[in-house]
């Protein structure tokens, strides 16, 4: 793993791994037999990593979820599916590159795939506007969903965004309306919808493509009403308190499962999805293969009623002591 891509909390284990690599090349040069020592060290590194990842704090999970080398939406489009044909544009204004989508085939079956796209580096991030969609991104997504409905194709969405683009253009062109419309229309879209949160599920920008029959989260992804930094700024006027806010907000996959907001958690390889992209891509593929047949077999009215009730029942309140 490239040294510049490790997270602060895995520094110790990365240093050890670098040592092992050094030792290995040294052994090769000198024809020394350090095989046993290296194996021991490797085991130690593995244990260290396991220990770190077994008890990641919510803030550490936020960092893993934002890891630049983590597989992004297009990696899944190209890795999970046999073929992907990108379809561009909202047919009204522009092609928002922060939202990508198109036709894809899984086990020879066609479906529509949509997702927010972050980049691995600055160049990619600039090309995709850092995964912050404009209103046109949500409108493109809805256009593709209506396309799916017309041809009776299931819809798979991949969520990975800090949020909708918070700027002048978005406000002028009605990003709130675009998200709201998606929420309403996805709730009655007459084809199965599976949502996979693969990285960051940032507030309205995330839920704008996340009304589905199944919502799954990767183990180290997060989904929240506000970023930990934003929450910390409001609560304590200090963005540096984000780690504390991450805890309070309950944003991890485990938290959301407990709160009954998502159905499934897809476990990640040790050390996070970015360490073994092929493994996580295979797991997401398997998840879709397991869930699509069941959803596709359901009568559409049953599917829609269940989808409605799934969101309808989310809410925690108490009976009032007396009527107000």
């Amino acid at each position, binding site marked *: 793993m490239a040294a510049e891509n490790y997270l602060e909390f895995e520094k110790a284990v990365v240093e050890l791994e670098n040592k092992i690599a050094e030792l290995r090349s040294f052994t090769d040069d000198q024809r020394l037999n350090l095989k046993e020592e290296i194996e021991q060290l490797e085991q130690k590194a593995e244990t260290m990593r396991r220990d770190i990842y077994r008890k990641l704090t919510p803030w550490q999970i936020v960092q893993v979820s934002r890891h630049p080398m983590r597989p992004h939406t297009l990696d899944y489009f190209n890795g999970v599916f046999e073929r992907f044909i990108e379809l561009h544009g909202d047919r009204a204004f522009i092609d928002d590159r922060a939202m990508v989508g198109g036709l894809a085939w899984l086990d020879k079956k066609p479906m529509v795939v949509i997702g927010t796209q972050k980049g691995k580096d600055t160049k990619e991030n600039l090309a995709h506007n850092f995964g912050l969609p404009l209103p046109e991104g949500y409108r493109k997504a809805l256009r593709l969903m209506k396309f799916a409905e017309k041809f009776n194709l299931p819809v798979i969405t991949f969520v990975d965004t800090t949020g909708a683009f918070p700027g002048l253009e978005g406000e002028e062109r009605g990003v709130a309306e675009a998200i709201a419309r998606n929420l309403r229309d996805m709730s009655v879209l007459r084809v199965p919808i599976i949502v996979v949160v693969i990285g960051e599920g940032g507030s*309205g920008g995330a839920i704008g493509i996340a009304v589905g029959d199944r919502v799954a989260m990767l183990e180290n992804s997060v989904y929240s009403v506000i970023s930990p930094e934003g929450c910390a700024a*409001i609560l304590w006027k200090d963005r540096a308190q984000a780690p504390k806010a991450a805890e309070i907000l309950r944003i991890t996959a485990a938290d959301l499962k407990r709160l009954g907001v998502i159905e499934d958690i897809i476990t990640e390889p040790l050390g996070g999805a970015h360490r073994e992209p092929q493994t996580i891509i295979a797991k997401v593929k398997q998840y879709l293969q397991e869930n699509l047949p069941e959803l596709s077999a359901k009568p559409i009215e049953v599917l829609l009623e269940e989808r409605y009730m799934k969101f309808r029942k989310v*809410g*925690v309140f*108490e009976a009032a002591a007396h009527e*107000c």
Partner: protein
Amino acid sequence: MDWFKKPKYMTVRVTSKKKLDIPDNLVTRCPGCSEIILNKDIENAQRTCPKCNHHFQMPARERILFLADPDSFRETSGRIQAADPLAFPGYRDKVVKGKKQTGNLDSVIAGFCTMGGIPVGLAATDFRFMGGSMGSVLGEEIAALIEKAVERKNPVVIVSASGGGARMQEGIISLMQMAKTSAALARLAAAKQMFISVLTDPTGGGVTASFAMLGDVIIAEPNALIMFAGPRVIEQTIRQHLPKRFQRAEFLQEHGMIDIIVRRQEMRDRLIQLLSITQPVPAQE
């Protein structure tokens, strides 16, 4: 002439208490025209400034009584109150404060009434209760109101004063209320019942990005701040200079986001006119 001579002023100490010996609850300085206006005059004008027509915020219950036909409102809300699902710091205190300030259990009042004789589901949110933010209670009351309206075949009017958007203190559960209320509106649409969304100052975030922007007709009060991301968030995040009147009702209308701007004094009549299209046309005599 000695331009640089220090001017000689007589210093008079004015204790502001002495000078303005008017209790705070009697007058208000209007943010629109800076005039000092008697509170009584503002209240008599449906909480607008009699000098410049600035629209002050209106409490939810007052709004409903102002819009509904006299004695016709039957409240469906008021039976549930906020829990604290995340054990979020300070949330319970904020709810207690909101209850005290408004006399309501949460940020919304909902129920059924007639307007100009037309039966209608009517709700209003209250900015004084945690910024009118949407948590589980608001989401539930709105969804339940819409579902009942579907059953009764009634149109729905919701007046938003929810600058707080989705209520942070309930975390992801608040976010889900956006999907819940919007899905309920899909059912209202399928039942071919009209939904009129009235946006008042201020309405933002997760409320704007759900039911508030889904009206068959979207009305705003003059100068109301209507936004997705707040201006401060935008300025901080992307350091963009924002134009004058940005995110005000008139700006939104120019950009095609709302149908009409209606002054509060004319709101009830205008709503009744719009709702009347849902009524059967009386037979010719």
